[in-house]
């Protein structure tokens, strides 16, 4: 069995998302599709799964050309796709999700099938629980099981490791290896080199809507980086900074956001210091960030910024005190859909003038767009920006002299170039005396940029590490709740 996409073209407006892409994958192959955000990977995979109709090009499986007008045709041909945000129905039960769109079968048999398939891969879910109670990782597992049950011979996974735990990731990788071993075609889409490196047999690299190269793994990382970006990008580390006085001090705080309960937490971050927060999703990092930002009330203890007690101060008062928070949901919590870059800058300006001087505002926005190298125009709306550019815009809106910058997953979903740029900006601010507290699931990021790392486990500080002496293996174990030191 082999799958071939030949000369696929697809444009959206003036953007050529796929500009003549050709891809060939053999049976039993774990094939990586690598490229930075916006390279056209997702579009290509949506074409392959019938979700998008291409402008031109052919898809053939086993030398037979497929007529694909909708996902229905793709399913019939045995092509299934796991979307980046798993397409499950949140209020429906797991079993209903499994059944929806399946060939006729009675509920009891379906329940048996679901149990059997889940057990094959070491997954487990309660068939009667609503899907909204499942973690992102479990929703993926449900989708994978469902697609296999529908007879998928080709399984596409679009950035599946975003938002899932380390355990779920290893379970997923194990399942994918098994499937490839059984002779299936698995296409793994990612912008993360390390994942492709550990998982895949072969890799195809895309850049700007075209395939730019192929390689059999293992291969030198520099070769792949060069294919992705056209030239090798030097990833900057962080030079040891100069520390000032305490910027943020937490003394015995407790907070509860209904998902995680933080108790008796004491921490001090100094000006010019970077503190990384590590831990499984929901171990307390987000709770802590939101409590510091003033978005979540603390039930005990005190919070001081500089030498001011801000415990009883709300979000706006803390903003004024120099505490800024950039949430992980950039478009959901950080930016406003439908408003342009200029309008965002004006909203964030804090000006009290009754009329907005739009001509000046546009000029000002253009300067800041250039300064922060945002790929967009002054009248581009927030949702039209890519993830990396949304993060750039958010950072550009933070005034330069903040005391404490709280960030949740600062580079999640960003390609290497954008991530590197974001950290370049952050390091500049740190050198100017800002304290940065960030939560991340990326161990390399935590180790590379933090001065100290706090590892959370079940709402408690499990361990405090000096980043210069820690390594990824140790950190990984600590996150899982095992102290091997």
């Amino acid at each position, binding site marked *: 069995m082999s799958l071939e996409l030949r000369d696929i073209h697809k444009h959206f407006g003036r953007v050529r998302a796929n500009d003549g892409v050709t891809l060939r994958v053999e049976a039993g192959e774990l094939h990586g599709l690598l490229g930075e955000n916006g390279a056209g990977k997702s579009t290509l995979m949506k074409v392959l799964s019938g979700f998008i*109709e291409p402008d031109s090009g052919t898809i053939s499986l086993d030398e037979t050309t497929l007529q694909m007008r*909708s996902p229905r045709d793709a*399913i019939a041909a045995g092509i299934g*796709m796991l979307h980046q945000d798993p397409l*499950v129905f949140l*209020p429906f039960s797991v079993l209903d999700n499994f*059944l*929806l769109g399946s060939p006729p079968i009675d509920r009891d048999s379906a329940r048996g099938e679901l149990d059997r398939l889940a057990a094959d891969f070491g997954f487990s879910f309660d068939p009667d629980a609503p899907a909204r109670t499942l973690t992102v990782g479990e929703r993926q597992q449900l989708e994978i099981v469902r697609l296999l049950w529908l007879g998928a011979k080709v399984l596409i996974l679009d950035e599946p490791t975003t938002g899932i735990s380390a355990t779920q990731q290893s379970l997923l990788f194990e399942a994918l290896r098994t499937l490839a071993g059984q002779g299936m075609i698995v296409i793994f889409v990612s912008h993360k080199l390390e994942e492709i490196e550990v998982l895949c047999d072969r890799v195809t690299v895309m850049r700007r809507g075209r395939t730019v190269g192929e390689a059999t793994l293992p291969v030198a990382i520099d070769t792949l980086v060069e294919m992705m970006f056209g030239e090798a990008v030097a990833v900057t580390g962080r030079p040891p900074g100069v520390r000032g006085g305490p910027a943020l001090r937490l003394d015995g705080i407790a907070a509860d956001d209904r998902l995680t309960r933080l108790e008796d937490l004491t921490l001090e971050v100094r000006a010019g210091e970077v503190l990384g927060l590590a831990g499984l999703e929901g171990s307390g990092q987000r709770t802590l960030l939101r409590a510091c930002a003033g978005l979540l009330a603390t039930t005990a203890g005190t919070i001081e910024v500089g030498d001011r007690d801000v415990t009883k101060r709300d979000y706006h008062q803390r903003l004024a005190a120099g505490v800024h928070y950039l949430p992980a949901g950039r478009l959901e919590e950080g930016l406003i859909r439908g408003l342009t870059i200029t309008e965002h800058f004006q909203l964030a300006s804090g000006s009290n003038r009754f009329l907005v001087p739009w001509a000046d505002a546009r000029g000002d926005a253009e300067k800041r767009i250039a300064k922060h190298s945002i790929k967009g125009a002054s009248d581009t709306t927030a949702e039209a920006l890519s993830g990396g550019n949304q993060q750039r815009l958010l950072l550009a809106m933070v005034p330069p002299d903040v005391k404490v910058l709280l960030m949740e997953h600062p580079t999640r979903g960003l390609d290497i170039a954008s991530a590197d740029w974001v950290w370049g900006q952050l390091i500049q601010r740190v050198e100017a005396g800002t304290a940065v507290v960030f939560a991340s699931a990326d161990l390399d990021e935590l180790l590379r940029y933090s001065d100290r790392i706090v590892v959370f486990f079940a709402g408690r500080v499990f361990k405090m590490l000096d980043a210069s002496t820690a390594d990824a293996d140790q950190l990984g174990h600590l996150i899982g709740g095992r102290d091997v030191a």
Partner: protein
Amino acid sequence: MDDTIATIIAAAAPLIYATMGETIAEKAGVINLSLDGSIMLSAMAGFALTYITGSVIVGFLAATAVSAVIAALIAFASIELKLNQIAVGFVLTLLATKLSSFLGTAYVGVKGTHVPHLAIPGLSDMPFVGTVLFNHNLSVYGSYVVLIGTYLFLYRTRRGLELQGIGERPEAAFARGIAVNRLRYIYTVIGGALVGLAGAAYSLDVKFGWRENLTLNFGWIALAIVIFGGWHPVRVAFGCYLFGTLQVVALKLQPVEALQGVSQILPIMPFVLMIFTLLIVYLDWFRRFGDRHPAWRRLLASDPPAGIGRVFERE
């Protein structure tokens, strides 16, 4: 007492038709806001056609057709023209209402044919239940069928699950090979047809006869009851019977001496109380109560279909 409850059941029958129709359309993701106008024009058409042909069946068919056509217009405007469902529905409400006044002039005050009465043999002899449920006009029995049918279809059939899927997350339904927009057309029109039955049930039974604005505001209250009922047919039906109760109580209070001063506002009190109940149900307190007592959550949960009112367009 038995008779009073029987009156409530009968008074609520048209609302059952309308709310079930709206529940189906909204569960599929399309808001048919034209209810108030649809019911009115269907009521007029149903009465007029029955008067002309002498057949109640023809009247009901005409009423069904009128509202189904209006629903089809909403589906077309939303799916093909990508227009806002709320705006289109509102315009159609006004249009249908005025059209009913204009076309119905000739039928004001004429004597028509009533839906036949049928005491179900055997069942109607049972104590209490017989009087309350099984001694009614035919259109009331139809409301039972529609209510139970809607419930069973939504929650017991594969097609019902698909229907919920296209309203909840159309992209996910599409990815599963379901023809989202075609089904949205179908369910909006079926829902509209049921709304039409409500109109005929008013003009040929509950509010027998035709005059201008015969069913004014009943469409709006039906829309509110669907929200009150959290898009669940059983809870929605409960809302209909609650409203029916309020109506009958208001009617009974009208001759009371002490209330003569407020007799002008009594007829509108059920509407006000119903909207008030709706607000109460949406208090955050109820949500928190549901969080604490999972057994109640199912009954109190009232999340709208996530894809409601949103146009589905493939990339």
